[in-house]
């Protein structure tokens, strides 16, 4: 922490030369030519293929597993079950920034006592071909005790419901059920006086809302290659959002020594939070240890849908009251979130974000984490916040209607600003919510005319943005160019942002800086690429390391000139002599670099940080859409994202985050949902049946970057990656209401549901 202390405060207005420019990303050429190597592209001599064998039941106790027939199949080199791992008890530990349960993480890789969802892996087979491994898997004999599956929140909470985890009692706040329960945790925030607050209200709106489980839908399925060598050391190549996380999780789940494991991140084809957990790597390394061969494991799309991180389905109730003049006085929620098979839905974050953008003095926010026989949820871009905003921002839209107010004006009247208190306690530092609302209101989109069967919606949202640990190393080449090494897999263009920040400090062109993502042995520790933290936190480490490099370069210039260090300033990539030595003139970074061997050897510096959370980013979205009253099909006509970025380092990639979040959110709003059969089997585990938006479904998404500097970052950066998915669900729902007169409180707003609603309305 202390290392970050001097860099965590802003520098006021600063003229940037590199920051804010739009260079082509360094990995761009390899990606568009197909040369970039993703998780499934790695091979080693002698490599064999590992596959999981998955449960045909959503809820079943494993009485015994007999792998002997599978092991005898020619070509099979290893078969593993939970018995090949140390027996780690399930235990939720609140450690560091979030809680963790290594017993649950291990059981997510391979089921131990019970299969908890259809497709839950219970064994893995490695063979000389993928086909042999799959066929051998079918010969594994399991004695199952099939149990009644729990497939909805209603069923999970029903009296006498089957319990997923025996001995699991409800933790957290509020009134809780007695004894074992499928409610794992409750979150409660209260303030003011709820009854008094609502009695002050002239208008109260309330509603029940439901959202289905949806998947992140990253294009690249999970993939890894693992090699456990004769000396006990291991190498893993993985498509992951955090290779340091893979290293520590693999060590804990398998019982291996973490120092024996090196993890190299491959290029990654999307993650959105879903590539933070480990699914393949612990199994692959144990298969490799048992077979003595390198083992590659890749998932099919079907497996990705059935057994990797979706985000929660939800059932919510919320109400809000306002005075006739528009002042919000009270709000209340009960947010019930599906966690899937193990504790850990994002309901806590949902509680921390729902209604938080507004000053509401009296509130009761209750959130409930519920386990059921569906895949275990993983983080998904601003986890929980889009779901919560779907309820809150629709109710605010409804309030605006009842009060006959412009929906942006009503939000402006109640918007939280610097010094305002979040519902979860602390006061906000400088935030840009009002500025963002005002920018949306002034946008030409908001004033454009709309036609018949069309509607315009507006909604807002925010995300906290994480800080966490990062390190960076910067070195100078002998031609005056530089290399920046960090440990964060580049998902959203972060290599370009790191290079821009180093270039800015060095005073050289960004094309002279090469950014690298190093493996776990070659760079200092970095927490995962997630929480919208990399440009902020890792960027801070890059800036700090580069400033040290600049100090070294000044010292080398002082040596060359034989003057005092204090007499050397750094300006635009040159050492400039000052004070009494101004007659020495200046030395360029190239001239200093060429002499490095004479002045003390290579110039290298590293820095590490663990800064506080990154300063929340607020966004406001506008959507125009048209509903075909004959078919119920919705077409998005125009969509605009306005968001505070603090300071946009690479504006194209900031805009890309805005557009990507909006596109994902529109899909969630209009089409995406898991469909289940009565036994809990996913019925639409492919992109043909699980309909995500493609380019032809959407207009070009317009963006406007607002810049209200984050006082915690030297350039004012805020995280930008997650906020853009928070407002779209409610934005589209509000536009649907404007177009059809129907309030859609259940997602997705798919054509059959829309048609039904329109027809029932007119009949």
């Amino acid at each position, binding site marked *: *922490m202390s290392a970050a202390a001097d860099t965590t405060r802003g520098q006021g207005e600063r003229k940037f030369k590199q920051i804010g420019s739009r260079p082509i990303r360094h990995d761009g050429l390899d990606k568009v030519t197909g040369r970039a190597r993703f998780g499934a592209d790695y091979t080693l001599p002698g490599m064999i293929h590992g596959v999981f064998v998955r449960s045909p039941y959503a809820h079943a106790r494993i009485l015994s597993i007999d792998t002997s027939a599978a092991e005898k199949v020619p070509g099979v080199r290893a078969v593993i079950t939970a018995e090949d791992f140390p027996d780690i008890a399930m235990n*939720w530990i*609140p450690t*560091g*920034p*979030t*809680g963790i349960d290594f017993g649950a993480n291990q059981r997510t890789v391979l089921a131990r006592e019970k299969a908890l969802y259809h497709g839950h892996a219970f064994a893995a087979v490695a063979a000389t071909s993928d086909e042999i491994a799959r066929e051998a898997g079918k010969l594994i004999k399991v004695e199952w005790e099939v149990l009644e599956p729990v497939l909805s929140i*209603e069923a999970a909470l029903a009296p006498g419901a089957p319990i997923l985890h025996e001995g699991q009692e409800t933790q*957290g*706040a509020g*009134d*809780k059920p007695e004894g074992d329960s499928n409610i794992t*945790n409750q*979150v*409660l*925030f209260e*303030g003011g006086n709820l009854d008094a607050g609502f009695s002050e209200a002239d208008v109260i709106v309330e509603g*029940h*809302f*439901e959202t289905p489980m949806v998947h992140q839908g990253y294009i690249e399925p999970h993939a890894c290659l693992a090699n456990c060598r004769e000396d006990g050391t291991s190498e893993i190549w993985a498509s992951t959002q955090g290779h340091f996380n893979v290293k520590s999780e693999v060590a804990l789940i398998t019982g291996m020594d973490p120092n024996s494991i090196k993890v190299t991140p491959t290029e990654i084809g999307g993650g959105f939070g879903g590539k933070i957990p480990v699914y393949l790597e612990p199994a692959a390394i144990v298969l490799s240890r048992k077979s003595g061969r390198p083992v590659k494991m890749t998932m099919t799309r079907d497996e990705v849908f059935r057994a990797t991180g979706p985000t929660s389905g939800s059932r919510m109730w919320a109400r809000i009251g306002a005075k006739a003049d528009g002042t919000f006085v009270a709000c209340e929620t*009960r947010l019930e979130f599906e966690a899937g098979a193990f504790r*850990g*839905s*994002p*309901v806590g*974050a949902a509680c*921390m974000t729902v209604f938080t953008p507004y000053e509401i003095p009296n509130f009761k926010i209750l*959130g409930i984490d519920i386990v059921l026989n569906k895949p275990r949820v993983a*983080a998904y871009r601003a*986890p*929980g916040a889009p779901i919560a905003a779907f309820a809150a921002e629709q109710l605010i839209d409804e309030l605006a209607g009842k009060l006959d107010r412009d929906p942006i004006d009503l939000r402006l009247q109640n918007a939280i600003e610097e010094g305002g208190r979040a519902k*979860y*306690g*602390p*006061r906000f*530092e400088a935030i840009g919510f009002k500025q963002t609302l005002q920018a949306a209101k002034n946008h030409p989109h908001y004033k454009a005319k709309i036609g018949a069967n069309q509607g315009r919606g507006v909604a807002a949202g925010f995300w906290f943005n*994480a*800080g966490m640990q990062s390190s960076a190393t910067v070195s100078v080449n002998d031609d005056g160019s530089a290399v920046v090494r960090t440990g964060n897999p580049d998902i959203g263009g972060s290599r370009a942002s790191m290079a821009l920040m180093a270039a800015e400090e060095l005073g050289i062109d960004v094309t002279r800086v090469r950014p690298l993502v190093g493996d776990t042995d070659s760079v200092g520790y970095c927490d*995962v*690429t*997630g*929480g919208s*933290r990399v440009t902020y936190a890792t960027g801070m480490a890059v800036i700090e390391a580069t400033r040290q490099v600049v100090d070294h370069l000044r010292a080398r210039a002082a040596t060359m000139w034989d003057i005092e260090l204090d007499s050397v300033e750094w300006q635009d990539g040159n050492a400039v002599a000052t004070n009494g030595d101004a007659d020495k003139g200046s030395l360029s970074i190239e001239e200093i670099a060429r002499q490095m061997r004479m002045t003390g050897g290579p110039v290298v510096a590293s820095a590490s940080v663990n800064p*506080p*959370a990154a300063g929340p980013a607020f966004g406001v979205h506008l959507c125009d859409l048209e509903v075909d009253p004959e*078919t119920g099909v919705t077409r998005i006509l125009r969509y605009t994202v306005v968001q505070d970025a603090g300071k946009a380092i690479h504006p194209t990639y900031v805009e890309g985050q805005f557009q990507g979040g909006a596109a994902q959110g529109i899909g969630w709003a209009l089409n995406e949902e898991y469909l289940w059969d009565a036994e809990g089997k996913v019925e639409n585990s492919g992109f*043909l049946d699980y*309909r995500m938006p493609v380019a032809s479904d959407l207009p070009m998404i317009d963006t406007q970057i607002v810049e209200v500097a984050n006082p915690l970052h030297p350039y004012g950066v805020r995280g930008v990656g997650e906020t853009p998915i928070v407002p779209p669900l409610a934005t589209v729902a509000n536009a649907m209401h404007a177009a059809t007169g129907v309030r859609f409180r*259940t997602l*997705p707003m*798919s*054509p*059959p*549901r829309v*048609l*039904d*609603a329109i027809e*029932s*309305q007119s*009949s």
Partner: protein
Amino acid sequence: MITVVFSSAQQRFTNGEAQAEFESKRVDDLIRQIYARYADLEGQLEHAAVAVEGVVHNDALYVRLPPGAEVHFVGAVAGGSGDVTSEPLSPSGAPSGAPLEAGDPLGFAQRWLAQGLGVALATVVETWGSSPCPPGSLLAVNSTGHFEGSVSGGCVEGAVIEKASEVLSTGEPALLEFGVADEDAWAVGLACGGRVRIFVERVA
């Protein structure tokens, strides 16, 4: 002087005190002092994220406290699941006072009747195919338009509620039927395909 503001959940361990003042220069020392004053909080704050003057630190033990700072111990949210872990466990016998919970339409119907409101009840009486709510599922609607319960998971609630308000005013019960027959609906692979019959009646 440092002011610690306690969340509503934490106040169950502080004899209801919403905030307290301490002389402290660092978070670890502050936590020791809090435990000395409120023994029931022992062990619950080390892993919390700590907001000092609105800046949230995830790993806060050695963070310095400027004089006059306001401090909160909050559930941390990282890039991970967003599960809030640091809410203290509730002691037994905590006061309840909670409203009726969602999922109890009959309870709400009873309360509304007691308040003198008109109440209509919609009941799923028959389903075909994959309809989300089984026969017997209830939706209660009152004369102010508030409703509780579900007959379809939201697909047809709007229409049922509208019909319910008609039933409330006329007193005539109604049998409604909803379904999806549109072949086009399958083009996006999301039609639920079910049909459902719902009986709507006024209750007194």
